[in-house]
């Protein structure tokens, strides 16, 4: 994939690094000219969001670290969450890192790397809400972000009216404006949302628990293995945890 320079991109500053890796990637079907194209939905702090006209966040930094290890240039494109997997499938992007939970449906369509973070779907409500645990969602108006795991599981809540927003933030805003009763969304962005908006809280009991991983095109084992190697290195060196800590605690 290529992108014109006016696109919302965050380019890794590193030029193509170690010659040997660069030569290798040339042969990989996924890479064009040593560039790795990542797609994400940059409305999902702290994993990915816009800041200073760049897409930043945990995923962005991990991806950059991986790209550095592979000696490739990283380009990040922003799109709707439910478009991410189709973009990877179609080869428009090499991979997606978007706080994406591993589940069976998705596994049918893409290959996941080793997981790099634990996550949970949590419930945000207004302070003083009568919803105190996941069972309380029954029959309520529940806001989710289209295509997220929260969206998919919310389908199973009994009698709930699920409202699907293009962005998690729009769902939170609808909650603060009393348009809905609760938002089901990943824990990390939820933490940020609650911190940034007064009068919101996260219920103690999580809605579901799961793990995040990076997804590549099905069958692209070459890239998958390389990324797994890089992730392992980052984990072992503690670099990965540093990145997560930086965002989760700094925020």
């Amino acid at each position: 994939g290529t992108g014109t320079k006016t696109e919302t991109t965050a380019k890794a500053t590193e030029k193509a690094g170690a010659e040997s890796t660069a030569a290798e990637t040339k042969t990989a079907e996924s890479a064009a000219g040593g560039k790795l194209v990542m797609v994400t939905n940059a409305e999902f702090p702290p994993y990915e969001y816009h800041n200073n006209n760049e897409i930043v966040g945990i995923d962005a930094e991990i991806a950059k670290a991986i790209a550095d290890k592979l000696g490739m240039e990283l380009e990040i494109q922003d799109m709707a969450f439910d478009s991410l997997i189709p973009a990877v499938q179609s080869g428009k992007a090499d991979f997606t890192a978007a706080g994406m939970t591993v589940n069976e449906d998705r596994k049918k369509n893409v290959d996941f790397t080793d997981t790099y973070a634990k996550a949970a779907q949590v419930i945000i409500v207004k302070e003083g809400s009568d919803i105190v645990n996941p069972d309380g969602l029954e029959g309520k108006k529940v806001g989710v972000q289209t295509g997220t795991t929260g969206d998919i599981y919310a389908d199973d809540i009994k009698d709930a009216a699920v409202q699907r927003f293009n962005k998690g933030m729009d769902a939170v805003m609808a909650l603060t404006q009393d348009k809905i009763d609760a938002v089901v969304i990943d824990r990390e962005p939820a933490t940020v949302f609650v911190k940034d908006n007064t009068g919101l809280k996260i219920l103690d009991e999580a809605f579901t628990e799961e793990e995040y991983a990076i997804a590549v095109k099905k069958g692209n084992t070459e890239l998958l293995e390389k990324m797994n190697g890089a992730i392992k290195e980052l984990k072992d060196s503690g670099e990965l945890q540093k990145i997560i800590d930086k965002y989760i605690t700094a925020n």
Partner: protein
Amino acid sequence: MWEKLRDDFYQNFIVDDRWKYITEGLQNTLKITFFAVLIGILLGFLVAIIRSTYENTGRLKILNAICSVYLTVIRGTPVVVQLMIMYFIIFSFHDPGQIFTAILAFGINSGAYVAEIFRSGISSIERGQFEAGRSLGFNYAQTMWFIIMPQAFKNVVPTLANEFIVLLKETSVAGYIGLQDLTKGGDIIKSRTYSAFFPLISVALIYLVMVMVFSYLVTLLERRLKKSEH
């Protein structure tokens, strides 16, 4: 290949009753379009009357000024921005429901275009008709009511019916406020199956069929109106 198509179809529509996203979305799309058209016609008619009266007689100056602002603002901004303003700003303290919000936003938007339709309908009636009415002794309002309006209305009925088609397509951005319309219904399926082909194409086909059917009805209507023209 055939196998794959069948499987894709199964995944996209049958599993988990996913076709319901489409049918529910379609219902909402039709509901929004229908009521928005009603609001649009009402609003457009009022605005057209006010503006025609001002142009012909110089009366209703303040109302006319308000109408001008309304037309400029609504025609000067994209409907999706209007929809978001309605949802996130105007109804930020009270929620009348997404569907209602959408109906209101699209209705107000439509009104600005319908006003132009009515106005051109009125001004397409020859000046001589107006003069003939006045010279018989009818005043301005009587002339408009007995002579101009019935002719103007008949002229614009097909265009008004067309406005339904225009709005049908415009409401496809209703998903911006989390509302599950037809387009969003396809989006949701796409987000479940990670395949774009079936959901997008079937949504497009449904719009296409609806537009073609309504266009055909408009043609019938036009023909009937023409026949009743003596």
